């Protein structure tokens, strides 16, 4: 074969097939960081789902004999100024907040990915228009928009459920679009055209599954942002209305007694922190370079 090797390019390194396959199968292949993050989130979700079973007291159960008592085995997070069990209230609040966070994060995601993927794939005028709309959406002060929506629909979680998705899709659309601009030049996307596939098939079956990964990684960060937004609105009294609890409203209630009874505001706040740490670790771990394009 001397005729062939005149200009033979050096071959790529061999792939350690078996090791890679093991790596890629399910959760076992994830970095430790992502596993811990997923564990924390799973724990919080589980606790929130089981709140009625776990919570030792009702969320609005008053007990005037036990006002502002410090954390103890019977009141893990202590009690607030009307004797309500902070631990029970935190569990119920977590339930409400997590449900809203999941909805306002994962409903805009597929919409944004689809819009961004189409803009990036078709290019031209479609892309220019979508890109400008995205810019406008992202440039608009997010918090102000949500408060404006609340001003229209009234206080409560409804404002968040409507206001956040109006803007949040644009973040995913921007991400998906920029990934798509690169991906459409990749041979495997060119191949979908050369193979005679429809554009619809090329986008939905070939591009979108490959775009989902960066968007899902980003969504872990977005969840934290949304949880903080919820907590901030509740803190301002624009979230779930009393007596129902949200993490932010518990913190707001406890603020006036922060110096005498630190636990009322601090311990629910730490739950928010725990969620943020968990989601951050998961997102960070998922974006680990070794797994690029690998997780199923």
């Amino acid at each position, binding site marked *: *074969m*001397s*005729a*062939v*090797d*005149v*200009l*033979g*390019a*050096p*071959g*790529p390194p*061999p*792939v350690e*097939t078996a090791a*890679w*396959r093991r790596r*890629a199968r399910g959760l076992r292949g994830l970095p430790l960081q992502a596993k811990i993050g997923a564990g924390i989130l799973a724990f919080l979700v589980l606790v929130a789902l089981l709140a009625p079973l776990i919570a030792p007291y009702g969320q609005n159960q008053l007990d005037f004999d036990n006002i502002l008592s410090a954390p103890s085995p019977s009141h893990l997070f202590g009690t607030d100024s009307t004797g309500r069990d902070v631990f029970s209230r935190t569990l119920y609040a977590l339930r409400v907040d997590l449900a809203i966070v999941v909805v306002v994060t994962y409903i805009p995601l597929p919409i944004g990915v689809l819009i961004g993927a189409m803009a990036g794939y078709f290019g031209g005028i479609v892309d220019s228009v979508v890109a400008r709309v995205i810019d406008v959406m992202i440039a608009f002060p997010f918090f102000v928009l949500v408060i404006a929506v609340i001003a229209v629909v009234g206080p409560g979680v409804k404002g968040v459920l409507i206001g956040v998705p109006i803007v949040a899709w644009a973040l995913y659309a921007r991400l998906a679009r920029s990934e798509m601009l690169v991906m459409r030049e*990749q*041979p*495997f996307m*060119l*191949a979908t*055209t*050369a*193979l*005679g*596939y*429809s554009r619809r*098939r090329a986008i939905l*079956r*070939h591009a979108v*599954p*490959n775009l989902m990964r960066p968007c899902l990684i980003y969504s872990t960060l977005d969840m934290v942002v949304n949880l903080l937004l919820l907590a901030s609105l509740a803190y301002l009294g624009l979230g779930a209305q009393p007596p129902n609890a949200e993490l932010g409203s518990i913190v707001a209630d406890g603020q006036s007694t922060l110096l005498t009874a630190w636990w009322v505001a601090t311990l629910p706040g730490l739950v928010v922190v725990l969620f943020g740490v968990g989601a951050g670790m998961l997102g960070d771990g998922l974006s680990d370079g070794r797994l690029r*394009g*690998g997780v199923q």
Partner: protein
Amino acid sequence: MTDQLPLLRVEGVMKEFGLRRTASERVARSAAEAHRAVDDVSFALRRGEILGLAGESGSGKTTLARCIVRLIEPDAGVIELDGVDVRAASGPELRELRRRMQMVFQDPYASLNPRMTVATALLEVGRVHRRPGAENGEQFVRDALERVHLGPGIATRRPRELSGGQRQRVAIARALAAGPEVLIADEPVSALDVSVQAQLLNLFGDLRDELGVAILFVAHQLAVIAEIADRVAVMNRGRLVEVGETAAVFGNPQDEYTKALLAAHPHIRLSRVAS
């Protein structure tokens, strides 16, 4: 052979890439300087032949190959597959023409969807184009793999679990699953190491002999073309400078550029010239 109607006819194909104008040029409305990547190229691909397209990097080989299947829209010229005008087609008609002219890309690491198993990717082609046998998925995949001398064992794997040579074979199998009459192979072996290159070249030869598929084989390595092509077309700066039987062109080059190109690769063993 020569009086046969060509399967693929390319005539006067041209493609320019406009260079980006600077702001002052745009204000002055001066014409952007264009780079002519493919300049008035004409050739014919006969049924069942392997036509090598040679030329150095940047000579427009890949652009030409992509123009033929309209991955890049040519600016001018005629492209006919079996008498059907490729440039005038659109929609389902164009998709059918693309089915008949399949493409194999240079980089086997990027030309397969990383999320699809081999079986899914192969079967998708069969299902989309309603190829005979595609109803029976498992058999269809096994046949497709057998055509490129791969065992059925790799059907459940994803591209990253395959070697470069295996990937390129899968990419070829995917192209063949569409039932093409023309295979446009754009530097299909240059990303692979030498022993794998040799196997793949043999495979292309076998495919021509067994399936009767005509192959436009783009390569910058003259040795590769000498090994496999019946005829060779030499491209330089967007133009075809010489077309002819491989032995004739490599044995007695007429064009100055071809001579220079051959002189740059003094070790070519021209087995066909000797025979």
